[in-house]
Each structure stands twice: as structure tokens, then as C-alpha cells.
């Protein structure tokens, strides 16, 4: 288990310290294991350390995603599924820093408006095992300027699966019908694992939070798992706490099939499929907002206004109050007509 975690850390390249440690162990790791590591999409190239998050409120004419792996010999096939479930063209480029995929999303309310699924698939035989690695990125292409007219268009705001993809993770709605993403810590999230459009039972799904807390689950007969997003964003200083702070989580899935075959002339007797889907989550409302104070403030002002009006009316019922200089005014008879 420990070993595996290390591997993952290298692959994600999060912690500088751990990279150094892993460098020390680099030789034995490679010698021991030639199995390809799973990869995922990211907004930054593998060389960059900084984390970036995509905003669904800011439309971009061209969307670009890097593959997290530094491997050079990939045999990538790219797929793009638009919000209506139609396949579109995805451009794959091999750059010095790594692999870059891109596609155009013109700035207008068109068929691209909504969740677009970006996929790459890589197949490779190593040690008589066929590794099918896929990566998925869901980009919500939306600008409030285009309006929320697709509110009742079911297909527009549901997460789709693609039957051409050998292995993929399909989340159960992570955004609302206005395409606003609202994944918060504490939310119960549900994801499904599909293979060529069909649910996969007994797949291993691992959820990794920003600070590498992780949980592994096995899918049920519908290919689904459910988990609660844990909170791992803590600021000691109130000033530095951001309610819109976005943490990254990665959902990964793995599945083994004992099947023999021939892939491009190479024989294999086992298939290992892996896939990934990065997502983001923010602090829950409960972490920084309080009903108690809200209702208190509302209540105080309600009572103040109410009291103010009633007091004003009561005072008006006592005419010539100002004529009494020294004495306290006697109780006047209330004018019933008032």
C-alpha cells in the first residue's frame, strides 16, 4: 500500500520533498516495475507545479489540457463529446513539455454550451498484459451572459458516457441545471464506472483529495460508488480563508480482465484498464456561514422595526406630551378612534 502511494505521488508530482525521496529510489522502482502508470488531465503541463482550476463562468475560445504524464511514446486517440452527445474533433499535439489536447469553444450560446467530455485513450502491451489507459476531463463551457435557457433541457445538464470509450468515470451531476458547479466538502458524491457505455461491476475506484487523503471502493452492480467529500482545507487565519477556494480531487478507477488476445501483433493474456477524472471542490457553506447569526440579525431588526412603529403609535396617542415640563405625564385616556 505504501509503495503504491509513493508511486502515485510521483505521478502527480505534488510534494517536492517526496520527489527527492523518490529520486533516491528511482532505480529500484523502474527495475522492479515496468507497468505503465495511469495519467490524468490537468490545466498545467507536467513541468509546472502550480495548480489551476477552470471556471465555468469564464468562457474561452480555445480550451487546452495537458496530460499529466511525461511519457513520450504514447499512442493516443482523442475523443470529444459535446453536451448534446455528439462526437467532435479533438486536436492532440506532442509538445516538448508533454501532451496537449485542444478544441475550440466559440464564445456564444451554441451546441458547446454545457458539459463537454474530453477523452484520450492509450493502449499498450507490457509483459503480456494489455494496458488500456484513459483519461477524462469534463469542462463546463458556460457563461452567464449566454443565459440559462437550457434549464429544462435534460441532456444538456446531465453527465454523459461515451460508448467508444473503453473505460470511463461518469459522475452523477456535479453541477446544477444552470451549469454552476457546486461541489462542496461534505457532499455525498456518486460516480459510475462505464466500459463502452456499459456499467462495470467490481471495479476499484479511488478518490484522492487535494492533500492526498484517499479512499478506495468497489463498484456495485450498477457500476456506482458513493462517497462523502472530506474537508481538507484549513486556514488558521480568517483573513486568508477563501470561500471560493478550490481544491482538486481526482477520481481514478482500475479494472482487471483475464482475457487473452492480440493487440497489434503482441499477445496478451490479461487486460488492465485504468481511467481518471479530475474534479474540484470548495468549502461547504456550513464551514463559514451561520444561520444563527443570520436569524439573530434578521430578528433584531424585525423587532426593532416592529417596536419602533408601535412605540411611535403609542406616543402619538398621548397628545400634548411636550407641554408637561416637570411632571411625568399622567396616563392619558386612549383615544379609541385612533
Amino acid at each position, binding site marked *: 500500500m505504501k509503495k503504491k502511494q509513493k508511486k502515485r505521488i510521483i505521478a502527480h508530482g505534488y510534494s517536492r520533498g517526496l520527489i527527492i525521496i523518490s529520486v533516491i529510489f528511482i532505480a529500484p522502482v523502474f527495475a522492479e516495475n515496468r507497468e505503465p502508470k495511469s495519467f490524468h488531465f490537468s490545466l498545467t503541463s507536467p513541468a509546472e507545479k502550480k495548480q489551476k482550476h477552470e471556471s465555468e463562468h469564464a468562457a474561452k475560445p480555445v480550451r487546452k489540457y495537458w496530460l499529466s504524464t511525461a511519457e513520450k511514446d504514447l499512442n493516443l486517440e482523442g475523443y470529444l463529446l459535446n453536451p448534446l452527445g455528439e462526437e467532435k474533433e479533438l486536436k492532440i499535439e506532442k509538445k516538448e513539455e508533454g501532451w496537449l489536447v485542444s478544441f475550440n469553444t466559440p464564445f456564444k450560446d451554441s451546441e458547446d454550451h454545457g458539459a463537454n467530455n474530453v477523452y484520450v485513450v492509450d493502449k499498450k502491451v507490457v509483459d503480456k498484459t494489455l494496458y488500456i489507459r484513459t483519461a477524462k476531463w469534463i469542462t463546463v463551457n458556460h457563461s452567464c*451572459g449566454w443565459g*440559462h435557457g437550457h434549464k*429544462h433541457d435534460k441532456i444538456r445538464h446531465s453527465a454523459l458516457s461515451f460508448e467508444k470509450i473503453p473505460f470511463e468515470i461518469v459522475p452523477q451531476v456535479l453541477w446544477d441545471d444552470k451549469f454552476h458547479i457546486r461541489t462542496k466538502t461534505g457532499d455525498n458524491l456518486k460516480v459510475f464506472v462505464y466500459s463502452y457505455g456499459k456499467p462495470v461491476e467490481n471495479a476499484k475506484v479511488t478518490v484522492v483529495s487535494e492533500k492526498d487523503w484517499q479512499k478506495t471502493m468497489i463498484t456495485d452492480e450498477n457500476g456506482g460508488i458513493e462517497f462523502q467529500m472530506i474537508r481538507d482545507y484549513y486556514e488558521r487565519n480568517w483573513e486568508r480563508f477563501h470561500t471560493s477556494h478550490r481544491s482538486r480531487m481526482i477520481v481514478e478507477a482500475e479494472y482487471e480482465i483475464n482475457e487473452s488476445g492480440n493487440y497489434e501483433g503482441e499477445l496478451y493474456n490479461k487486460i488492465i484498464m485504468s481511467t481518471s477524472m479530475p474534479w474540484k471542490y470548495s468549502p461547504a457553506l456550513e464551514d463559514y*456561514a*451561520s444561520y444563527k447569526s443570520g*436569524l439573530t440579525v*434578521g430578528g433584531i*431588526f424585525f423587532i426593532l422595526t416592529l417596536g419602533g412603529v408601535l412605540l411611535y*403609535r403609542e406616543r402619538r396617542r398621548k397628545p400634548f406630551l411636550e407641554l408637561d415640563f416637570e411632571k411625568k405625564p399622567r396616563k392619558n385616556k386612549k383615544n379609541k378612534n385612533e
Partner: protein
Amino acid sequence: MNKFKKYINNVNISRFRFWFQIFAFIIMVYGGFLSIDIGENLPTFSCPYIDKGGGTCFLMGLQHRFTLPIDQLISFRGLAVLTSVLFFVSWFIFFNKAWCGYICPLGTLQDWFTKLRQKIGIRYSNYSEAKFKKLKKIKYILLGLLILIPIFMANSIPFIGKLSHDWAVPFCMICPGRTVLPLFQGDASQLVIDYGSKTKMIFTVLGMAITGMFFAGAFFKKRFFCFFCPMSALQFIFKKLGFLRLIKDGTKCTKCGDCYRACDMGIREIADDIESKDIIKDDCMMCFKCVAACPEEKCLKVNFLGKTIYEATEEGFYKRQKGKK
């Protein structure tokens, strides 16, 4: 035809309005459940904070759209602002300010408070005229701020810099529509104080304070919030384009003040101005209670595209007054 016209003129408009408002309230607040989406840029408080509402208030989009650097605002992206205003206007002209009197869910809610107060038998409050004149200006100030603040979020102010993102949709933050209307879908999440940042905290505290005052104020004062509503100010700019008009024939007016008495917004001009033909003032919500309360034949009229659809008649007045409980 004459019989039909007579029937319409004898109608108890308050009752008609009561049912129409319920209908509009259901569309605006629960429209999403009925798969109804009237659209964006509506000239009424169909609050976007309601999860499954039937439309979207124009002010929300307006505040978003003005979050642009000045150079972009005067370029092609400014065009988007312009088109949205165009959409707003095209919605608006159909009903003119009757959007307030017949459709606005927040207005309807206040009318229900008034009904409740009447049932209990507690006296209403009135502003004195001097106070009223001062309060009327608040809505124009709010309208100015709700455009200026978003602009300063994208453009820096000297010495202060850009306003942070927490200033987003400043009017929505203090609008009681945001806090109150989602409650009708069981969503109380807007009632919180947001400690996420100082700005947010101040805004939410302000919002909740106004909500508290809204509940108490609307109970005593008819249409309490409408005096401060920037939507009302914005609508007033375009009132000349409206198809629906409230027309007064000053020569027939005796200044009896029955219309002024009926007016929930306390507009004195309706009784005392005998010069203007188009009598709609900035506070008017076109509820047409004044027409129903006018005892002078054809003195007040409701016109749609120049055609009279409802007018004051002696008989109608007499019947309505007699029918009162």
C-alpha cells in the same frame, strides 16, 4: 360589446388582481417544477436565487454584465449589455409597470402581508409627504450603485484599487427577494451570515437586517419595499414606451382624492395633477386600484396601445363600494 364593456368596468379589480397575483407567483416561484422558464432579463423580481424559479430578474444579469473593464464595455462586449437592455425593454413594454402590481412575487408577498394586517385589524402606516419625498430618492441611489460597483470590480478606483470579487451582485445581497423568496421552495440557505470575508459578512448582515425590516415594514406599510426598489426606478426610465397606459382626463377630475386614498404607494399626483395625461409616476405599480376608486365617468382609463380596456364609471364605482365587506 357594450354589455361586455360594462361588465369589465364593473369588475372588482382587486379581486381579479388577487387571483392573478397568485397565478403569477406560482409561475415565478415554482415555474421550474412546471418546466416553465419565461426567460431572462425580466423586469420583475423573479429571483434567480430561487432554485427552480420561472424566470430571471434583469438586475442580476445587469450587475454581472457591468463587471467589465471600461475599454471592453465600450467595445463589442458593451453590445451584450445593450442587447440585454433591449430584451428587458421588450419584456417591459407589454405590461409597463404592471409588472410590479401584478407579477412581482416580492410585491405579491407584501400584498399578502397587507391582507393579513387587515384581517387582524391593525392600522396601516403612512409616511408624511416630506419624508416620503426623501425616501423616494433611495431607489435611484441604489440603481446607480448597482451599476457602479460592478464597474469598479473590473476597473480600479484611484487609491483603493479594484473591488474584490466579494462585491459581486451588490444589490442582490441586500435585496429581501434573495433571502425571502427561496424560502418558498424550502431553501433557507440565504438566511445565513457569510463569514467568508469581511465584505461578504457586511453584505449578508445588511441583507438580513433589511429582511428583518422588510417583514415588519411590509406588515404596517403597504408595499414597504417598493419605495426603495431600483427596478421601479429603472422601469420608470422606459415608461414612455409602454403599451399599457394609465390615462387621466383632468377636466373630469374633481380632485376628490378617492384615488389617492386607494393608492398603496401614496402617489398624490393621481388626485391633484390635472394637467398630465399619462399619469404614471415612478412609484406607480399599475395596480389600477385608483381607476376602480374613481367615481367620475371616464376620468381615469387604462389603455393598451391606445385602446381603452378599463375605465372609471359611476356605476362601477357604486357597485364596488357597495360590495365591500
